[in-house]
């Protein structure tokens, strides 16, 4: 009850603050006060609200829970990404005065024909990211109120779209700043509770030579049909259908493979070995805590996987359109860098706390390994780590944080997608923007329902891989290399974007399932990012049509604003 109320509170506050958002700008008769820009710290809260998504909040603990410490590369990649953003991207893009990436690329390379192309890359990568947020929404509402998965997806998709098309994201800085506090609190509170339990010695060790087992007798709901591997014969109490038999009572589940139907409840006894979903590695505590080794990551090539994963996450962050857009609110390039410095300072501890949740999930909520639903780990853990009223409160804080995470990121992504769609495809104007919002969210809701069985981080992996091998190289080369040309840019986006998308779709269609082919196609960034750079550079060098006005453009991007840049002679 309390967790549901907490989530409703976040939703209501989001809509209310967004609608009344302009009051953030107080009425004054003083021009100096009125035209004071957003403080870099406040803007950093907003960037954090945007950047801390369902991907990190729900996805990363799940990833670490399942695959172990190799998954720390996600967080390291993202942190490096923010550093790259701060050093190389945020300030020049801001100084250039551009609101979106397609606009920036068009202005920098004088290529109107580039705009729809870049907009398409933006829309595709945002779209996978948005699917991940909707997936998070479906998982959280199901865990919380027990409604089917699709209800949450539709509700959040419609809510965010309605809020946006009603002009409800005015003063987005305030809304996302507010959401940041909930997200951060949602991770900080379980971290503190777990930390105090660990300090008082109540927590058993995670690094053991055994695979995970249930600490206490645990009742597990199976929302979807799942095929699990049971490793030792276990006496359980079942209410539902297992292996095609309706059962209501005690049963000895023999070791081996079993099919558990959707809607089944099983009570596992304390000490029993945790059953695993078919296809997941059954890692011992020691294996879990050591990188590489005998893992099925990247089709059995964990080292390749680590590099590919790191590259995708690094370049994916700098290229995600909803993050870059937030720096527009900064008045100068310097303020944009300051903002990003604060972002790093706040997001680093957040990222540092997430692995602990993943590890604790392995102890307190190991059943997610066998429900086919690892993304619910954070929420389930929130319900587990304390009892009674304090348990309810912890769960409320965690659920509210999750809601804030997917709401803020879904809104930001929908703005970025609808902005690109309406401005670069449908034509500018408020009715077109509203139409674009509904089209984008409609398509995403439909797809969001379909991806129920796909892990959030697989979706995020694809999104970042596509962004990292098209928009990433495009931004780096246009900002830092005078020799980059229009044709080079077109080649970068087309080759990088299309090969990655094709690789992702091949994996999605299930055409490869193991070994190097799976590694190369499922985690393409290791080859696609260098390829996109190489193609862009080669084509630009061969291209006789160089971009004009380079001196002016580079001065605009790289000199501080107080150095007046003269307009070019025309």
């Amino acid at each position: 009850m309390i967790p549901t109320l907490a989530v409703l509170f976040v939703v209501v506050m989001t809509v209310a603050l967004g609608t009344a958002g302009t009051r953030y700008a107080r009425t004054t008769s003083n021009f100096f006060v009125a035209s004071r820009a957003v403080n870099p710290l406040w803007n950093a809260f907003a960037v954090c609200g945007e950047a801390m998504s369902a991907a990190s909040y729900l996805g990363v603990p799940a990833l670490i829970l399942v695959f172990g410490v190799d998954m720390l590369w996600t967080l390291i990649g993202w942190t490096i990404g923010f550093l790259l953003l701060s050093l190389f991207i945020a300030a020049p893009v801001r100084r250039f005065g551009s609101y979106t990436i397609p606009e920036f690329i068009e202005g920098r390379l004088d290529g109107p024909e580039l705009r729809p192309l870049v907009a398409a890359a933006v829309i595709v990568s945002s779209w996978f990211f948005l699917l991940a947020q909707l997936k998070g929404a479906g998982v959280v509402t199901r865990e919380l109120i027990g409604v089917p998965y699709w209800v949450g997806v539709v509700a959040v998709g419609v809510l965010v779209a309605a809020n946006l098309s009603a002009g409800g994201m005015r003063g987005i800085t305030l809304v996302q700043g507010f959401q940041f506090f909930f997200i951060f609190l949602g991770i900080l509170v379980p971290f503190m509770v777990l930390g105090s339990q660990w300090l008082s010695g109540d927590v058993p060790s995670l690094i053991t030579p055994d695979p995970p087992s249930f600490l206490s007798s645990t009742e597990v709901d199976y929302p979807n049909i799942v095929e699990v591997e049971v490793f030792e014969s276990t006496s359980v109490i079942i209410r539902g259908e297992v292996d095609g038999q309706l059962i209501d009572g005690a049963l000895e589940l023999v070791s081996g493979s079993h099919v558990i139907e959707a809607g089944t409840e099983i009570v596992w006894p304390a000490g029993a070995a945790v059953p695993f979903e078919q296809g997941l590695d059954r890692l011992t505590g020691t294996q879990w805590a050591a990188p590489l080794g005998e893992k099925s990551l990247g089709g059995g090539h964990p080292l390749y996987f680590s590099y590919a994963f790191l590259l995708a996450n690094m370049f994916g962050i700098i290229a995600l359109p909803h993050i870059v857009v937030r720096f527009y609110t900064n008045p100068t390039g310097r303020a944009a860098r300051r903002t990003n410095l604060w972002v790093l300072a706040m997001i680093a501890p957040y990222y540092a706390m997430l692995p602990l949740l993943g590890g604790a999930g392995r102890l307190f909520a190991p059943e997610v390994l066998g429900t086919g639903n690892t993304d619910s780990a954070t929420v389930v853990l929130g319900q587990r780590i304390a009892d009674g009223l304090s348990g309810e409160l912890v769960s409320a804080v965690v659920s509210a944080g999750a809601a804030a995470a997917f709401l803020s990121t879904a809104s930001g992504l929908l703005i970025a997608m609808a902005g690109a769609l309406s401005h670069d495809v449908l034509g500018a104007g408020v009715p077109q923007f509203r139409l674009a919002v509904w089209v984008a969210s409609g398509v995403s809701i439909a797809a969001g329902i379909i991806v129920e069985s796909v892990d959030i981080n697989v979706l995020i992996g694809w999104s970042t891989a596509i962004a990292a091998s098209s928009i990433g190289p495009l931004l780096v080369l246009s900002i830092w290399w005078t020799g980059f040309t229009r044709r080079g840019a077109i080649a970068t986006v087309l080759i990088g974007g299309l090969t990655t998308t094709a690789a992702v779709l091949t994996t999605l269609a299930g055409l490869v399932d193991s070994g190097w082919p799976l590694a190369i196609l499922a985690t393409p960034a290791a080859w696609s990012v260098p390829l996109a750079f190489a193609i862009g550079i080669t084509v630009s060098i061969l291209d006789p049509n160089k971009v004009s006005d380079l001196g002016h453009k580079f001065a605009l991007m790289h000199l501080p604003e107080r150095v007046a840049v003269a307009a070019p002679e025309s």
Partner: protein
Amino acid sequence: MIRRFRRSARNEIEDPTAVLEALNVLNDHLRRGLSERSAMEIARTTCELLKCRVVAVTSGQTFLAQFGDEVDWIPQVEEHAAAVLERMRTTKPTLYTVSFDREQSDVAVAILVSDDVPIGTIHAMPTVGGSLNMNALKECTSLIGSQLKLAEIDQSRAYAAEAELQALRAQLSPHFLHNSLTAIAGLVISDPERARMVITQFSEFLRASFRDQTDLTSLSEELRLVEIYLELAQIRFGDRFDVALNIAPEALPVRLPVLSVQALVENALRHGLEARPGRGSLRIVAEDDGPEVNITVEDDGVGIDPDRLQDALNGSGTTSHVGILATDTRLRSTFGPEYGLMIATAADQGTKVTMRLPKNRPSRS
């Protein structure tokens, strides 16, 4: 509404010279567009050429003028004008029947078309017992229509020239220049320190107004210019109005044509607050709206008569609101036709002018 009634005997036109003369006189009047005066001339010429009992002219469905016998038929004329303009299927005259003073008569009505746009109607009632030459009415109507089209071209040419002049003259009104300099002259003696400061600000403002009119600036820079403008205006205006600002910080980086908000503020002062008795207030609001920013300048002054404003925006009629018109034109030409100004006003109820600005720069294709 002009009604002129003939008292003397019918002035028959028989020979071609008289016909041509009559048309020439009419042309001169038509070159000034369709007005009550030219409608009167249209009615007179048509009536004389076609030998009618009475002829009435409407602009749209509104009665403008009639010539001939005094007949009480204006409501019926307006009603049928509305009906034929609604149907608008043919330029050929059609017939309808009017009844007045226990009499009934056929009336022929033809649509006046200028540049393919129907703009009004001509209603001709034949003499008692007489008949109407429908073909002559049709030719007469199309001749008048083509003359009106020429008039429209003339007018838009004049307006274009005026707009160009406005652009060259930058945004500064001579009115403002004069007032500022007079105010500074006053300050030089009473408060030399302040005078020095004001002159510095004034020159900053001048420099901005000399910038290329297609130049864009950020809202935060524009607000600085508005502040200087208001300070200069207040020296002369005195402390007769309050200013309230409500600026969303997200809106500050948005790009807009230089001095466009200032033009709206100047309009509010000159046409709204100056003429208002007592203390007025001026409000500038900038809202963040996703991919766009809305900027509103609102005053509680005397307001603008909506009809006159409509005329001004349509390019007909003269207006002193050149600032608003020029800003509207600049916004449309910078961001596209859908980014014009929105104006809400009524006499004595203040004026609220809103501009929408895209954060995304328009594509240069």
